[in-house]
């Protein structure tokens, strides 16, 4: 079995949201930590797509940013292609690894510098990693990259505001490919796009994956998109991974109550006019999550153990689940 391209172990990212020091001393207020990511571990195989799914506030974007080095980690080990990615190493030392890890962002309007021409935007990684130097060669490569994402080399002379949302995402993809990255984190790449454009971008991403052997970490809240794109899926809730499954297992045999909730509440074209009674309750704040299993206030199967003890990820067919009820075969 091939070693995975990316391995994440025990990733934690806490934000200190305590009141200012003076308030803490005078009013005796305690320190408060926002545990955005609270111990996440997974592996991504080469050339495959691993998706992180969950609602807002679950920490999936933060995981991606920690892997790419945009945030520091509070704790955790990240191994890329066998090499441990050092959080504290100098910028120069990290460059060879950084070159291979790139990202596509959610907002097509904020992800391109509005004052730069497309030519400069796509050329920046090429120049930064020193692969090609002469102006002509760089321009030629920019043209090739634009072509591979479905645009034309002439588009390089335009500014981002002259393009639609879908086209801007294509430019972002071209930029991510420009450094010859083989691992691309995609943070909600199609959420801000219209449905018909979404289909174009998703098809493009799949084509590029095949052509260049790319590995994707896909972050999304849309389970249908995730099912269409992924080889493995991890479901996150309030900073923790509650279920990780490979292939179709998540959809055919969901084990965690939250996964089942998600699958049931997504409005779908296949169930027309259905009157569902959706599960009540809202996602609690990550600053004061419930003790034990974070999901227990909303879970129909919660018992005393769920309120006290944090469940561990335990093996099930084609993956793992963190749920006492599943482990005790109560559901």
């Amino acid at each position: 079995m091939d070693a995975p391209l990316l391995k994440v172990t025990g990733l934690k990212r806490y934000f200190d949201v305590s009141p200012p020091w003076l308030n803490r001393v005078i009013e005796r207020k305690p320190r408060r930590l926002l545990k955005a990511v609270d111990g996440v571990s997974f592996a991504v195989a080469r050339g495959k797509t691993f998706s992180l799914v969950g609602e807002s506030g679950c920490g999936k974007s933060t995981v991606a940013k920690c892997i790419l080095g945009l945030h520091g980690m509070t704790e955790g080990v990240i191994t890329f292609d066998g090499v441990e990615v050092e959080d504290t190493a100098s910028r120069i030392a990290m460059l060879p690894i950084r070159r291979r890890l790139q990202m596509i962002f959610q907002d097509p309007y904020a992800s391109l510098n509005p004052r730069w021409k497309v030519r400069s935007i796509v050329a920046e990684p090429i120049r930064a990693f020193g692969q090609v130097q002469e102006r002509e060669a760089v321009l030629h490569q920019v043209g090739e990259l634009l072509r591979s994402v479905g645009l034309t080399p002439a588009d390089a002379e335009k500014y981002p505001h002259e393009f639609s949302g879908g086209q801007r995402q294509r430019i972002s993809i071209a930029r991510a490919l420009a450094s010859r990255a083989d691992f691309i984190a995609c943070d909600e790449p199609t959420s801000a796009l219209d449905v018909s454009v979404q289909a174009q971008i998703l098809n493009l991403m799949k084509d590029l994956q095949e052509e260049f052997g790319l590995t994707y970490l896909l972050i999304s809240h849309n389970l249908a998109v995730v099912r269409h794109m992924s080889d493995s899926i991890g479901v996150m809730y309030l900073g923790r991974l509650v279920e990780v499954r490979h292939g179709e297992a998540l959809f055919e045999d969901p084990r965690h109550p939250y996964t089942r909730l998600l699958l049931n509440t997504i409005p779908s074209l296949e169930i027309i006019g259905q009157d569902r009674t959706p599960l009540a309750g809202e996602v609690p704040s990550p600053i004061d999550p419930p003790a034990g299993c974070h999901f227990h206030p909303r879970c129909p199967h919660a018992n005393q153990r769920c309120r006290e003890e944090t469940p561990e990820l335990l093996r099930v067919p084609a993956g793992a689940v963190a749920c006492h009820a599943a482990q005790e075969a109560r559901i």
Partner: protein
Amino acid sequence: MTEPREALLDIRNLRVEFPTRRGTLCAIDDVSLTIGEGEILGVVGESGAGKSLTGSAVIGLLPEPGRIVQGEIHLSGRRIDGLSDEEMRRIRGKEIGAIFQDPLTSLNPLYSIAYQLVETIRTHLDLTAKQARKRALDLLQEVGIPAAEERMDGYPHEFSGGMRQRVVIALALAAHPRLIIADEPTTALDVSIQAQIIAVLKRLCREHHASVMLITHDMGVIAEAADRVAVMYAGRIAETGPVEEVIRRARHPYTYGLMGSIPQLKTPAERLSQIDGAMPRLTEMPDGCAFHPRCPRAVDRCRAQRPPIEVVAAGHDVACWLFESAPKPGARI
């Protein structure tokens, strides 16, 4: 039109234009819709299709410098598109309620929930302060705010997004309007909350006998909540019909392509069918049918003449020259 009963809302040949320095843009081009009593009509389309503007036109809140230049809007038989600001103000809230996308900006952050509800109620209904407060409490309980009596004097920022949207629904229904315009009511909410809000909306509108114009880009929401749906493209209506008909047996190539490009949870496809290109900008509208540059079935007539609305089946209309034959199922569009 195919709606036999007297419609609650009747939009006929509406045309909305925006004069700009680059010429006059036509944002809504000859759109006709009807909504019956107690019916939920979905108006679906992608960004720029004109669906939100249609809702704004009905409620009389077209953004400057938009103008209705042609067509009529009738509410319960009474013409409302040419009314003065004062008359429209009386209609808003009392006969037409509105729910917008962002619950954060729909509620005034400086006033308590109870205050805003009571103010709306007393503006349109002749009740004392005490009666109005009781009514506000009833409404909050109806929309499912837990511990409503204790929380109703709280401020919007003390509620979560889903709760705020419920309050907005309560506000919209406060004066017993017969029509609700809901513009992307679930888009800003988490997935598991969206389902709750749709359920609340459906239930309340049924109980209050209110009709809804549900404007959204999310077909899944339409599938779950709407009775009929109108598909808009580039300011024009492409297809109208019962929800199941339009989703399963779409006649317009755009609708058909749209359904195919939505990834499905239950029946995954290897490749999503995609519609190449993008919706034309209002400044660059093609002649004839607005969709023809992206349509694989386009013939010369499509390029030259704009297709009229034709009846395909009971209650199912489509604007396509090739309406007699359905797009081939499974064909890549």
